[in-house]
């Protein structure tokens, strides 16, 4: 049997008075696309925020590629190879595509103590390539992200994650507030993760979307995992029932 890329063991999370995750254990296999569903407040975002380093766990253990990890911030998770794409907050609208691609990970020339001159040529070239790689057609890497549609923005975020060779891509409701056509595009990106040997964790409130692009469905309710099945072993009614 293949070793899971992420293993979550007895994870607990308390927010002052709220017990948001209650003894959650979950194995994510390499190359699978896992759909995470659940009602509002079920704890989905909390779980993936801990995996992506933006929040800290109260107790429990996380293993990444077999080794225990303790992410102190998003950078730790990104360095390990876990990239997260949020509904809104992964792009700065007032900055160009090329600059957004490299926020916090800018290639620099003449660097000293981590500061240096931007290698703008490399940023432009590599972002053009990264965007073309995800089959997104944009005029110029100098266009502002604010000029892009919501779906295009998610496309750039996904291109960014791929460019940095992420092994696991977490998408937290990436299709929220998108028009039908745009949503289709984003779902297309999610489906393509398989071919690129990237593991995906896809959170959505739309059960049809989840069934459309995932290999496995995990449902959460009130901070616990209440269902964990391969898509072919379940159906929408069963998932709806447990929620």
């Amino acid at each position, binding site marked *: 049997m293949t070793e899971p890329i992420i293993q979550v063991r007895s994870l607990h999370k308390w927010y002052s008075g709220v017990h948001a995750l209650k003894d959650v254990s979950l194995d994510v296999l390499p190359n699978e696309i896992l759909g995470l569903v659940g009602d509002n407040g079920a704890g989905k975002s909390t779980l993936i925020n801990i995996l992506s380093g933006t929040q800290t766990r109260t107790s429990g253990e996380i293993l990444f590629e077999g080794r225990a990890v303790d992410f102190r911030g*998003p950078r730790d998770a990104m360095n390990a190879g876990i990239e997260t794409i949020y509904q809104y*907050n992964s792009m*700065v609208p*007032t900055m160009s595509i090329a*600059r957004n691609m490299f*926020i*916090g990970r800018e290639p620099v020339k003449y660097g000293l103590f981590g*500061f240096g001159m931007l290698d703008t040529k490399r940023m432009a070239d590599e972002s053009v390539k990264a965007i073309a790689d995800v089959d997104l057609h944009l005029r110029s890497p100098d266009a502002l992200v604010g000029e892009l549609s919501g779906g295009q923005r998610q496309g750039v975020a996904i291109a960014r994650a791929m460019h940095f060779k992420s092994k696991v891509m977490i998408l937290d409701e990436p299709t929220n507030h998108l028009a039908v056509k745009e949503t289709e595009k984003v779902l297309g990106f999610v489906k393509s993760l398989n071919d690129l040997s990237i593991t995906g964790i896809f959170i959505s409130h739309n059960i049809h979307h989840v069934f459309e692009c995932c290999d496995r469905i995990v449902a959460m309710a009130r901070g616990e995992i209440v269902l964990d099945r391969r898509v072919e072993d379940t159906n929408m009614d069963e998932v709806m029932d447990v929620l």
Partner: protein
Amino acid sequence: MRRLLKIYLEKPELAGVVFLIVLAAIFQHQSGGVFLNSFNLQGLLGLLPEVALVAMGVTLLMICGEFDLSVGSVFALCPMVMAVMLEAGSPFILAYAAGLLVALMVGFTNGFLTVHFNIPSFITTLGMLFVARSITVVISGGFPPMLPPDVLPKWLFTAYVGPGGMFRMSFLWFVAVAVLLTVLLQRTNFGNWIRATGGFLPAAQSMGIPTKKVKIATFMICSLLAGFAGTIQVMRLGAPLPSIGEGLELQAVAAAVIGGTALTGGIGTILGGIIGAILIRVIDNGLVLSQVDANWFKLALGALTVFAVIVNSWLRAKAKAIKVETST
């Protein structure tokens, strides 16, 4: 129209440039050719660095998404620290370093209080405006310290240089700082972090940028520039008055805004701040030359600021609407 809007979005300071040219033409006409003669330009360029240095710092900080209302007080405090130490017989270098260090400490305090207690910088720096001014007056002992003669290296900061003594040394300092800040903001990774932090904080955070440190550092740069500008004014005047720089914080914000810096952060350029500062100096000077009552200056400045914000936000809204059209 579409092309114009695109240019505007990429170069938000352009509207200011156009306005500056128009204004210069009007003043040139009104003053019967005095405005652009070398004597008047010399005067203009001599005073410009003091406002422009402060405006550049404030612009950088506004791009980072924060405000500094204490720059006018730091403008007075920094040279006052220097003067008090000079009066006590300390060598210039030491006194100067101490003054700038105090400016940095004020900036650090502003930034630290703002990010760690999560309060609007409008409030923290409003408090600092009073605190720093009060300290300035207290350490001055109520009247300006007497500086030993020839202790100030005026040759390095305020002496006239260039063909026909066209510039003061301070102008060269100003140009050097302007180039440095522009490179910092546009060409370094730190500049990228400043813009990302001010442009959309959650995105900057989720990409792992140390936004708190970036903000504190930018507060410190802003304060340092204000203090530096203050020392230049004191060297030009020869005496450290505790009241210098009053109202300067608002002129600096006005300069930034006139130059296209958005109040919401993320948008703006150093050049824009400079153009705003030039506009302010030009209006002040041009009104005097046109023999208009000097009290109209504040009215003109206020009207221009509001006008600039309205034009900027109108243009941005317009540009946004067009983008939505093209993207669907």
